[in-house]
């Protein structure tokens, strides 16, 4: 390829940020000073290009240090990774957490999505903006759901700066990779001034939820002094109750202690897996009737079998922890409260499908989950539970954490592969399916966090006992994310088959319930007189709706429905990757029509509703991926089931 780099040079700080990730450059081909030896060899070919997948970690490294990505920094990163600058520019501009224009070192992301909108996000934004004007060093950005809906309204502060401490996490086995934690301090190269961070600031993040103008302003100006978040168990109203399966350890174990995890039954499932062998594990998972919890409800055993049986190698395991569906926060709570469970479950899944490497793709907005998982993976590796010889069984497996950078579409399974590989997070067309050609073009099993964690009780209790939970077609326990107009929002665990009403009663539904959004923004609304819908895949399907990722968002009659629908439309328009026409333009036309009818009903709205139906039908039929195909679901259900514009 023709690689041409511009004249922009990285600052010392930008260079240091990249070098901390990739190591110092070895030759002038990689951006070091030119030496005589460089004139006599050329660098290129496959080996040079094979590091393309470090592009996203590299962009994070610069963004974490400086707060934005300059031309010089991008060019330097491209030189180090042999990536054409035009492509890297396309990647950098794809993610909402990155900026290619200068901006203040601190970004305050204020959630304006469904639950937070109802809890006063608009006032929070305007209040914070009024107090943090120009010169405050903070940029206030409106954000889609931050996955903290149980503590709405929510905000996240990200301050760029020098890393706070050398990384304690051991680096990945094969090469230096971004494990998300603070990278090691940059090497000081003689002859260069020591890198300086503007104002000597250190990198920091803070999560504020529920937030007030005062608390976000305080956190944005001094994130390191922000009060600690409540423990993960605070999001689990049932914490400590008897009979919990998936949430049994949340709030009970110390999420930082491997010993405590083992004392609470940890790693017995992995031992059983080694007794059963890969085929035996797949048989148990199949017999248990486990179905994916990420929204598409695909049988997990079948996916694993299909991956395991591919002749092409290597195989990969990918854990989808992107969780950017508005209203969803279950995976965060599990990862924060019981991180070793996910590490163990990924090890089992990797063993079953014949993978030696697992990627955990974690959304960029979850600093605490990142810290806990990075720590857990490091501990597991140090204790021989990951690495070349897991539990002395001769099985080699390791996990690499990849941080997303603000793109809901990267939760789509093939977009996620592109994102890891260093391309724009655009979905690929299927077939071929991931089990055949997935990550790096190799057979890949991709599963949701909750799906994977279900494998532990399947192995410890046995398929039969597991399948006895729930209904015949929807087996096992299920996590629900309840938020909105309820007394006790949070993650609830119920066996499949409980009704929507039972769940809402547990969560303390308030009076004058107007509507319930089931399955998130890609799901649909149901009426308060439909609370006997059984929460199973078949039951919701029969009722003409979906369980999706387990979102249950309640709205009482103070919530203006048209505004809610507009927010949903805005979400999809914002998050469309832009690849295909029905979704790229359709989501815009949908939002425009909803704007026109926001204040209208009846005959005045009829024309636009007919238009919405026509566009929605084409989006559902002709879009490449699930985003465009479902972008009209919630609006359609609000029109048909709730009579939104009558």
């Amino acid at each position, binding site marked *: *390829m*023709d*690689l*041409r780099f*511009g004249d922009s040079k990285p600052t010392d700080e930008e260079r240091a940020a990249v070098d901390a990730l990739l190591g110092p450059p070895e030759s002038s081909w990689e951006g070091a000073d030119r030496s005589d030896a460089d004139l006599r060899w050329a660098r290129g070919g496959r080996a040079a290009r094979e590091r393309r997948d470090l592009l996203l970690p590299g962009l994070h490294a610069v963004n974490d240090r400086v707060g934005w990505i300059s*031309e010089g920094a*991008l*060019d330097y990163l491209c030189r180090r990774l042999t990536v*054409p*600058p*035009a*492509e*890297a*520019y*396309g990647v950098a*501009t*794809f993610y909402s957490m990155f900026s*290619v224009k200068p901006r203040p070192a601190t970004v305050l992301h204020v959630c304006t999505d469904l639950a937070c909108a109802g809890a006063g996000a608009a006032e929070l934004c305007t209040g914070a903006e009024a107090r943090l004007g120009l010169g405050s060093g903070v940029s206030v950005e409106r954000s889609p759901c931050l996955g903290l809906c149980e503590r709405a309204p929510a905000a996240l502060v990200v301050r760029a700066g020098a890393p706070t401490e050398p990384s304690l996490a051991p680096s990945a086995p094969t090469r230096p990779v971004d494990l998300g934690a603070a990278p090691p301090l940059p090497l000081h190269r003689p002859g260069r001034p020591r890198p300086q961070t503007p104002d000597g600031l250190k990198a920091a993040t803070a999560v504020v939820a529920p937030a007030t103008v005062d608390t976000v302003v305080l956190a944005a100006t001094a994130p390191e002094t922000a009060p600690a978040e409540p423990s993960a168990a605070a999001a689990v109203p049932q914490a400590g109750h008897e009979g919990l399966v998936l949430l049994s350890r949340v709030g009970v174990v110390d999420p930082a202690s491997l010993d405590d995890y083992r004392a609470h039954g940890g790693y017995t499932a992995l031992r059983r897996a080694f007794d059963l062998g890969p085929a035996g594990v797949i048989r148990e998972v199949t017999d248990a009737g486990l179905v994916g919890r990420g929204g598409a409800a695909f049988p997990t055993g079948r996916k694993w079998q299909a991956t395991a049986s591919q002749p092409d190698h290597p195989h990969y395991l990918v854990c989808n922890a992107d969780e950017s569906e508005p209203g969803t926060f279950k995976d965060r709570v599990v990862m924060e409260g019981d991180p070793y469970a996910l590490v163990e479950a990924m090890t089992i899944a990797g063993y079953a499908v014949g993978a030696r490497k697992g990627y955990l793709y974690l959304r960029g907005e979850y600093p605490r989950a990142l810290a806990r998982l990075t720590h857990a993976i490091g501990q597991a590796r140090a204790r021989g539970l990951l690495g070349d010889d897991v539990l002395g069984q001769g099985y080699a497996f390791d996990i690499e954490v990849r941080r997303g950078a603000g*793109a809901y*579409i990267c939760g789509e399974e093939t977009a996620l592969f592109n994102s890891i590989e260093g391309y*724009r997070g655009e979905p690929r*067309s299927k077939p071929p399916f991931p089990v055949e050609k997935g990550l790096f073009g190799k057979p890949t099993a991709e599963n949701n966090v909750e799906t994977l964690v279900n494998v532990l009780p399947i192995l410890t209790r046995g398929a039969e006992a597991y399948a006895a939970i729930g209904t015949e077609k929807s087996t096992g326990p299920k996590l629900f994310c309840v938020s909105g107009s309820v007394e006790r929002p949070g993650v609830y665990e119920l066996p499949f088959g409980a009704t929507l009403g039972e769940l809402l009663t547990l969560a303390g539904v308030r009076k004058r319930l107007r509507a319930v959004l089931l399955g998130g923004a890609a799901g649909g609304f149901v009426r308060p007189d439909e609370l006997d819908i059984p929460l199973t895949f078949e039951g919701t399907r029969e009722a003409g709706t979906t369980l999706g990722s387990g979102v249950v968002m309640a709205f009482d009659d103070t919530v203006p429905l048209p505004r809610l629908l507009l927010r949903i439309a805005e979400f999809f*328009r*914002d*998050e*469309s*990757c*832009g*690849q*295909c*026409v*029905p979704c*790229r*333009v*359709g*989501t*815009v*036309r949908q939002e*425009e029509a909803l704007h*026109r009818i926001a204040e209208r009903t009846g005959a005045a709205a009829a024309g636009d509703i007919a*238009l919405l139906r*026509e*566009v929605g*039908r*084409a989006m*559902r*039929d*002709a*879009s*490449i991926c699930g985003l465009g*195909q479902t972008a009209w679901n919630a609006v359609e259900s609000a029109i048909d089931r709730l009579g939104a514009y009558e």
Partner: protein
Amino acid sequence: MTVTPLGIPRRLLEFTLDGEPVRAPEGSTILDACRSAGKDVPTLCQGDTLTPKNACRVCVVEVEGARTLVPACSRKAEAGMEVRTDSERARHSRKVVLELLASSVDLSATPQVAEWIKEYEAKPDRFGPDAARVDEEPRVDNDLYVRDYDKCILCYKCVDACGDQWQNTFAISVSGRGFDARIAVEHDAPLTDSACVYCGNCIEVCPTGALSFKSEFDMRAAGTWDESAQTETTTVCAYCGVGCNLTLHVQDNEIVKVTSPHDNPVTHGNLCIKGRFGYQHVQNRG
């Protein structure tokens, strides 16, 4: 015309197309089969020299048993498939897709699209006068070619032609996302500050005229562009020994642009900067 290289004969597979049994060589797309059967399926992002990105979705057809419609240009035909190219469902999506496109960008220089709009009774105006459009000024930053993103449908053809499918220069990619996604060079710079080598292969494949010769762009602006008055002569490039074929488009005894035959087995429609743009010397009549 697609060039089918001679090779080992491929097995034929059988499936039904609009109720008629058809046979197609293994590996052909539904679109290939449609074209052999003489059926017209509209296409925009498909190009005869490129692997389609299947992004425009005007070619969607109905496949029995599939949850959604499928793009004919890239879905491989399978034995036993039942395909309907002209069902109400497929026609509806094509109509809406054409409306969405025509309401957001300028398709006036896109061949055939006006016929399809008529055939599918698409009404791009029905989204109202305030419907968002790309609405950008043409970027004229060099003497060779012009980027007019107001006409761009994001078919990815130029990206693929400049990237790994032909030129391997990787000077252009897509930036941003959603409705704000745009074809861009690095840092959204002027072309002259980019990695572009001016081979013009992107212009060759652009289906909408979003990328065009500066000569054509200027003549269109002046109202003097007249395709009916042009002759096309295919000849051999005189610069180097590769022997690329050039098609000279001549109006009023002036070369107004140079294309290259796509069925040439050596170049497949691709040229370098000299063959594509270096024609001034033959018409200097000082």
